[in-house]
């Protein structure tokens, strides 16, 4: 009989718990899904140049990308790669729980510059509309038609305990069966995206230790 090699996490006791079924990282010039490196570009140190090469490399074909602020660019690219490279079905009720440290600071700076100039300075509505971090949730929801629970949180440091607590509460209280959760931070050329999908099925145990390891 042929031996079936199971991934390390397929243990029966995990089956009815909320587990991480897929995850994606964009950091230090590299993109990986479920721990497997899919793209590396350490030449582009500038975040906007780098994220554009990622967008092109993965054929994301979503021209609205070019209009977005840096936080939305990172979020939409990370979410798209995660959802489209894992063969996961799009669940329209999948909740979104994102967090970061700097809110949408880059576009805030840009908007602030336009309004602090002297005479004849007018704010741009195209910038202003992106000056809320939860716009990133809106962009992901629009692209994947997710009419679901959405919330954006700010912490000084990556907060695995909170993400686990809130993600579990959404699933355990019946608000959503699946949650896309994580950290999407951009501040000038410092960036780090770590998104993961949680549901009640086989996967990596949703623990603080695992989240820290996978980020």
């Amino acid at each position: 009989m042929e031996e079936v090699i199971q991934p390390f996490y397929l243990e029966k006791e995990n089956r009815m718990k909320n587990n991480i079924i897929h995850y994606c990282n964009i950091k230090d010039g590299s993109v990986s899904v479920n721990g497997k490196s899919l793209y590396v570009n350490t030449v582009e140190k500038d975040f906007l140049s780098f994220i554009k090469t990622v967008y092109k490399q993965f054929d994301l074909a979503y021209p609205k990308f070019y209009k977005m602020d840096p936080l939305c660019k990172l979020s939409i690219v990370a979410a798209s790669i995660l959802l489209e490279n894992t063969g996961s079905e799009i669940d329209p009720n999948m909740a979104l729980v994102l967090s970061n440290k700097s809110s949408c600071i880059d576009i805030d700076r840009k908007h602030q510059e336009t309004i602090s100039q002297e005479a004849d300075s007018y704010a741009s509505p195209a910038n202003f509309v992106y000056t809320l971090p939860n716009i990133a949730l809106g962009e992901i929801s629009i692209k994947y038609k997710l009419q679901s629970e959405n919330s954006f949180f700010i912490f000084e440091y990556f907060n695995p305990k909170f993400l686990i607590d809130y993600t579990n509460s959404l699933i355990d209280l019946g608000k959503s069966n699946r949650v896309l959760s994580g950290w999407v931070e951009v501040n000038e050329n410092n960036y780090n995206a770590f998104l993961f999908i949680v549901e009640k099925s086989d996967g990596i145990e949703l623990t603080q230790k695992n989240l820290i390891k996978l980020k």
Partner: protein
Amino acid sequence: MSASSNKISVYVSRGNCLSPMGIDVTENMNGLIQGEIGISKIVDQKLQEDSFYGAIVDKNRLHTSFQELNYVGEYSDLEKMMLITVDKIKSEFKVLFKDDCGLIISTTKGNIDELSSEVDEENYALYGLANKIKNTIGIATEPIVLSNACVSGVMAISVAKRLIQSGSYKHFVIIGADVFSKFVFSGFQSFQAISNQPCKPYDKSRDGITLGEAAAAIFVTKNKSLIDNQPFYELIGDSSINDANHISGPSRTGEGLFKSISNAIKEAETDKIDMISSHGTATNYNDEMEAQAFNRASLQDVPLFSLKSCFGHTLGAAGLLETVIALNFSTRNMIPPSIGYEEHGVTLPLNVSKSFQQKEINVILKTASGFGGSNTAVLFRKGKSNEK
């Protein structure tokens, strides 16, 4: 055993607030009952050459009241507003702050007007604001900032409820606040969304929003006995569903709001709603979208009011401020008028309140909608207090 089959009950106190109408909830309620509004004509050439309408807190009064708290150190106006507002909760429940008590700060832009290259990041970053408030009032847990546009204040109540029901916390202090900033004012001006008059939600002649500034605070707990010596409310249903339609325009069908309301009603197992404290920003699209959603939910006959025409749109504070005011009216079994509403201006029927009405109120629906396609609905049920 699933958590939902044996759900923990979660309660809120009536809370406190600070606005141009007053330094605490009592002053705010007295002003509202006398028919006052917090919106006035403002002359501030740093913001705009011509005068404009806004709801701006009297800073002299703010600084004097803050001095009475005896905090040492530098605090921004926003931080002063937050600390004054939460002080009542702090004096009553301080002993719990060292326990499993969470802190949620609901804000869109925090200290954004401090943003410049010469200033340390902590002074304008939202996490810096949260840390400062946490340390000043002595909360032991990591502060949670919820920044989800104009639904933040209502959503914060929902987040607290869920984290208590799932066993992660016992209590929460929620503080919602935003100031009247050049950052936001100039942005809404660029959208041509600012009204030339005090805003008129649901009225035929409405022409946009009026911005305001305020702070509100509320205490959330699973331990009813901590708050049942005064009027209190149970959180009986909540939901936040995104429209997935447009980042700055509401859905024409009210899809996300309708779904949020339906889910909250389903969880609460009651559709007997006595009054609705709605979002009502007085933009054409928002008010029309709400009319669609309330009609789809068959709530067009329930008395409804927007408080934006009193307080202006206070962004991250709005949902919490309006909840505090709605609960305080409910305690008096009163439905306030929706100021500025004269001629029905949305295409579907709504029971917009035109004057003060005395009516027994048990169940209150609070809704909010905002940029990013966000919507939140929370249902409250009046508790039986042991007030002496």
